[in-house]
């Protein structure tokens, strides 16, 4: 059963991501990207990271994708028709992609003997009550500095976006 699910979700993810690259129109690309994110979230659930799966759908599909759609709708739709929007070097790019995939695949298909030792995750989850509890605890104790840094990054992004997108006439 679990093999079937893995096969299904990974196939959907790969096909949808290929459709993102090959899409005729940019909105189609965005919609296929949502499908990719969804099936990746399903893979996350299979890996026991259900909190991340929900976050993935909430942030990516719910916020970032909607932001993209918004930007696309603000830009003139006719400019976005992707009929002749491929680079002339696309054969080369595909070859490069294939080579990199072959390399990564060669590395990834080896046996990871050093992965035999299991870490403390299962113990932590049993002790603290679940995946989201463990993530929450660690974010607010061991990783408090990166957490605060992330919030500062978000603040900077908000202010930066406002400053970049504001029109000049309104300021005067």
């Amino acid at each position, binding site marked *: 059963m679990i093999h079937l699910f893995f096969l299904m979700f990974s196939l959907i993810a790969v096909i949808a991501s290929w459709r*993102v690259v090959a899409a005729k129109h940019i909105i189609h690309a965005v919609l296929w990207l949502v499908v990719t994110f969804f099936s990746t979230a399903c893979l996350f659930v299979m890996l026991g990271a259900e909190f991340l799966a929900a976050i993935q759908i909430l942030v990516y599909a719910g916020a970032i994708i909607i932001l993209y759609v918004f930007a696309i709708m603000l830009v003139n739709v006719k400019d976005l028709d992707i009929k002749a929007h491929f680079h002339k070097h*696309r054969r080369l790019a595909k070859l490069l992609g294939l080579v990199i995939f072959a390399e990564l695949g060669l590395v990834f298909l080896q046996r990871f003997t050093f992965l035999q030792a299991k870490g403390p995750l299962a113990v932590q989850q049993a002790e603290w009550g679940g995946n989201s509890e463990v993530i929450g605890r660690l974010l607010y104790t061991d990783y408090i500095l990166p957490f605060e840094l992330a919030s500062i990054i978000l603040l900077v992004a908000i202010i930066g*976006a406002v400053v970049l997108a504001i029109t000049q006439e309104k300021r005067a």
Partner: protein
Amino acid sequence: MISLNWYLVVSALLFCIGLIGVLVKRNVIMVFLCLELMLNAANLSLVAFSDYLGNIQGQIFTIFNITVAAAEAVVGLAIIISLYRNRAMTNVDDFNLLKW
């Protein structure tokens, strides 16, 4: 039980498709979308490692990854919008004002 390698292969496949997209596409927004795809692939491999190593750090790293992706999307789209306002185009090749 599916071995870690298969998750990593799927992640590599997604990453390479995203990479091809970034190299091939000329539209800025499309390039951004393919970048999101690559980040997503990286997240998948991080979570897979986290599960198989029994260590939560991979998942925490993924959370920061998603945060940074959101910030990147916001700033990038703002730049695209203001570029579009000033030059009325969204092709990467046309943004060549700084080219010497």
